[in-house]
């Protein structure tokens, strides 16, 4: 137990499940999210009424997602109230808070972007996958280190969520483009904008993602300098965040300077999102805390 002085093991204190009133809400939210994803896929198979605008028939999965988000928000609020700190620390908290933040961004974007509304199967499936992951993740109580008790952390985390949310939005549009290249997708997604429109929309969102990721890196550096006495130390999370930034910048340059097909461009969106997703949720596999040993 003394090794906790290093702050490495955040899950040291296991509380009995009965003392975690947030879990039923979170689980209910995850199940509703799964139902929303299922409904999105089922909706793709239904015939499209002639008068319908693309995506309008697919509003039901998004409404169901909004219900799921309310449930997850209640669960997270309960956990926050019980532990006295936000969900910033271990895999369970990061997954749950990301499910909420990504879901909120996707739900908001779906009201603005009709193409994204049609991308419900892609976006909601990913959220459902995160939900399933949450179900099998240890929900043990966490302790907020003193170095996390700074307003800069809020900016850092918020900017990170906005970055990944935008990347998810772009992934939805790129996913539609790629799905439509399959025979089945071509039939179901016929009444959508052309590939060039989907492609340019996806990359416009990715450009905003670049802004948020750049700001996230700056906020993270400010926090790291105050908390640990160095603004950059190439820890796994910092290195992968930098690689994500490089890949995104490289993809933007490649798209501008080379004549990429819409499909290649969409695959680039998938690649950037995959690296970003691994940075957010893969690196904690290697290091228990977001910044292992640095807390």
């Amino acid at each position, binding site marked *: *137990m*003394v*090794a*906790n*002085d*290093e*702050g490495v093991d955040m899950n*040291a*204190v296991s509380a009995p499940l009965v003392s975690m009133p947030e879990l039923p809400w979170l689980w209910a939210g995850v199940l509703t999210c799964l139902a929303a994803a299922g409904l999105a896929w089922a909706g793709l198979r239904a015939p499209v009424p002639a008068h319908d*605008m*693309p995506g309008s028939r697919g509003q039901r999965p998004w409404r169901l997602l909004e219900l799921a988000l309310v449930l997850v928000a209640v669960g997270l609020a309960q956990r926050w109230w019980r532990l006295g700190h936000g969900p910033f620390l271990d895999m369970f908290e990061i997954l749950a808070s990301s499910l909420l933040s990504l879901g909120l961004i996707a739900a908001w974007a779906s009201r603005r972007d*009709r193409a994204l509304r049609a991308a419900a199967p892609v976006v909601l499936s990913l959220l459902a996958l995160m939900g399933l992951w949450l179900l099998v993740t240890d929900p043990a109580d966490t*302790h907020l*280190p*003193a*170095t996390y*008790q*700074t307003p800069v952390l809020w900016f850092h985390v918020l900017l990170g969520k906005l970055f990944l949310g935008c990347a998810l939005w772009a992934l939805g549009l790129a996913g539609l483009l790629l799905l439509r290249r399959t025979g089945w997708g071509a039939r179901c997604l*016929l*009444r*959508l*904008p*052309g590939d060039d*429109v989907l492609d340019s*929309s996806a990359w*416009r969102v990715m*450009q*905003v993602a*670049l*802004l948020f990721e*750049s*700001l996230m890196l*700056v906020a993270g*550096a*400010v926090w790291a*300098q*105050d*908390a*640990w*006495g*160095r*603004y950059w130390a*190439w820890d796994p999370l910092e*290195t992968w965040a930098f690689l994500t930034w*490089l890949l995104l910048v490289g993809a933007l340059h490649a798209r501008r300077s080379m004549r990429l097909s819409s499909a290649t461009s969409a695959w680039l969106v998938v690649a950037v999102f995959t690296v970003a997703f691994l940075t957010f949720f893969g690196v904690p596999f290697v290091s228990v805390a977001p910044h292992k040993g640095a807390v």
Partner: protein
Amino acid sequence: MKTMRTVLASPRLTLAGFALLALLVWATSADARVSSSWIALPSSVLAANLGATMVVHRALRRGGLGLFHAALLVGMLVVALGRLLHFEGRVELTQGGELAAEAIEPLSIGPWNNQAWRGVRFEQGPIRVHYAAGVRRAQTVSEVLVPADGAAPAAQQVGDTTPLVIDGYRFYTTHNKGYAPLLSWRAPGRDTTTGAVHLPSYPLFDWKQEQHWRTPDGVDVKLWLRTDAPLNEREAWVFEPAAQVATLVVELQGQRFELRPGDEARVAAGRLRYERLLGWMGYRIHHDPMLLPLFWLALLGIAGLAWHLWPRWVTPRWRRLEWSRTMKGST
């Protein structure tokens, strides 16, 4: 001249710069003997590459994109300069003791460092570290006294996200801290020597609070500390050495003594007095005069990027038209 520009602006040089950066980052993290000053090399190569590319491609010099690339270019040079001027080190300071340059252990020094760290002075005051149940570190409060010109030393509280900053050198408290029994050694015919012996970090080495010390006249002393209030892992507590009462077990010239504060151990070679229990705090020292310029450059670059992207994003009317046109085309 044109060939030179073309070579410098080559995408291959970009890749080579990043490869060199990756190699040196790996080398500096794998081997402590490799100075992080070497990062200045790939930073300079990448800066030259970007500068040449901006000269070759006019679009990169215009508007928001120009501002972004200029900030990136200057930023890389500033990072390189920061590595040449930087200082990284660590020091352990006893409560009541003053920082001395000899006590500082430099870990990495840039070749252009101003060496001002040798002149930094402050005195360590009381130390308090709060722990939650389960020995999980919470707030760290380290009081320090900083000399002021012609005035009484100014007291400051540092710890966690608040470093002590003197002459651009930033002192950060670390998890590394512990007990330091204050001892006085008096040998026949010699002056009394008083000093503190730093015991291993606490509570990390709670089970190993022992130390070996040799007096100025060569007498070996073995020390063990036994606190009256042992570590309780189940409850919250505060590490506050000055408020802790402990027994110091001493082995001196084959004899064993159990000393309370103020007690003496007497042997033929001299007398060892356990004055009282103090604490020590481990600091990490960081100096990089380019921190603030780098921060503002980063924000300036992002502002340039936002300026460049804004017209491409905020075009709702255009987007609606685009959608309608597409819909008409598909039906």
